[in-house]
């Protein structure tokens, strides 16, 4: 009960900080830019246009999710540690785990909010472009919905990874490392296949590392949706379960390590 109250207080605090900082303005600006960009392609033929709008729009949405994750999470804890605000906070009956959970929830919420608003805008835009073109709206909305869900999941996995690294690293180092993990995560399948085919010990070491890097390809169904291939709900469920477990692990590990860290 008290734990919930503490976490809630931290969420209110973190959200206030985010809303009053300029991070949000930047993200909104980016959102509008993406929307404008998707209008640039109207001189293509209709089939091409809709494909490009989908492609660019969904990629933009993914970027938006990642950017929000990075800009909220990479700075949150390091700022508190650097400005030493935790000195006073930790003199209250609130645990470091509760602080971290509050931060995780706040960062995830802002990611979800941003994705939700941009997703709805994108959806309206697509429907608007496709009206009177004899397209099955319900089917398309379903496909888009699945894509949105997985983009959101990938962003939350990113929040988890960024949160863990933010305990030890400054924002810039954190972001560089995150990009590295992100790229590897998207190449995971390919690299693993290549590695299995070789026999060198060196590669088994790399393979071992891949246990810790999430396979982010699970969350990328944009190509399938753009090419109009069916993605089953069953697949979405499994991908969300995978993402949820991975994130849970990251958050649990973060809390464990943060409890052991001295606040200097």
């Amino acid at each position, binding site marked *: 009960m008290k734990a919930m109250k503490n976490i809630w207080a931290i969420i209110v605090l973190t959200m*206030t900080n985010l809303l009053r900082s300029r991070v949000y303005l930047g993200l909104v600006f980016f959102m509008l830019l993406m929307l404008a960009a998707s209008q640039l392609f109207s001189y293509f033929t209709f089939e091409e246009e809709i494909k490009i709008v989908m492609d660019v729009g969904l990629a933009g949405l993914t970027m938006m999710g990642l950017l929000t994750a990075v800009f909220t999470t990479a700075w949150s804890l390091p700022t508190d540690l650097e400005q030493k605000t935790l000195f*006073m906070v930790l*003199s209250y*009956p609130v645990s470091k785990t509760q602080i971290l959970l509050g931060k995780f929830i706040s960062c995830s919420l802002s990611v979800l909010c941003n994705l939700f608003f941009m997703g709805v805008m994108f959806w309206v835009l697509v429907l608007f472009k496709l009206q009177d073109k004899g397209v099955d709206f319900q089917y398309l909305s379903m496909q888009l919905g699945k894509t949105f869900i997985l983009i959101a999941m990938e962003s939350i996995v990113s929040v988890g990874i960024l949160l863990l690294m933010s305990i030890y690293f400054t924002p810039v180092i954190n972001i560089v490392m995150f990009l590295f993990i992100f790229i590897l995560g998207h190449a995971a399948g390919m690299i693993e296949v290549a590695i299995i085919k070789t026999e060198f010990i060196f590669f088994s070491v790399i393979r071992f590392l891949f246990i810790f890097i999430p396979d982010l390809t699970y969350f990328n169904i944009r190509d399938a949706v753009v090419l109009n291939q069916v993605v089953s709900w069953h697949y979405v469920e499994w991908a969300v379960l995978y993402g949820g477990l991975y994130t849970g692990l990251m958050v649990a590990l973060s809390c464990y390590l943060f409890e052991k860290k001295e606040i200097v």
Partner: protein
Amino acid sequence: MEEHVLDVKNLVKFYKGLGGLKKVLAVDQLSLSVKKGEVYGILGPNGSGKTTLMKLIMGLLFPSKGQIKIFGSSVKKLSIKKRIGFLPEEAYLYRFLSAEETLKFFAELADVPRREQKTRIADALHVVGLFEARKRPSRTYSKGMSRRLGLAQILIKDPDFVVLDEPTVGLDPIGSREIKEIILGLKERGKTVLFSSHLLSEVEMVCDRIGIMHKGKLVLTGHLNELLLRKNEYSLVLEGFDIGRQSELEQVLQKSFHAKVISVNRSRETMEDVFIKTIKKHAS
């Protein structure tokens, strides 16, 4: 048995240097206990380990060796923290919150009932003199205002044991007098206070007991009176005395009391008193 609010035993703290190689010994085999209702001052030059000691007591740092008990249990216990208030070396505040919002946040963490929050926050803001500035973001506050907001946070929480790290450093005489008065107010209300300082006069003004810290060790501890009062020596303050008749007085004292006059001085105001009186006169 007398209740000890704080019990520190054989405390050692190393800071790990670069790469964990070179170690800095910041607290060295330190033992200390503070009784209920006492104001204890840790006096020491810069770098003697005062801040490190306070962070260890608050559980921000972990001891390399030794143990710390507050109200008989470890600081790791969350419920203990309800009874401790802490003001760090600088009041590190959330720069985007106003004084009012800051105190609201801390009141939530301190479990102050919602219906009491408003009045308690307003009262604390009045006590520390921040009521006018309560709506401004704290990044616009001066150093003294930040410190006072840090103190207000303790008043809201109303803990039994208060830990203050150099509460008056960097403040003007009025600011530091106000803070001393707040400390004395806490003492009057039966709170236990541990605070550090490198200013001798300030420790003298408010402490019951002091410990002098040097290179991580407590090198001298004792009651202020034991340490400062000279044995068998008293001073007499006279009004309307004719200084021309000093030798007469000395003779009387010698004859009737067998007391020897050691020195005769004119009473002086302290510069602090003069300064504060002057400013107050101009303010009204």
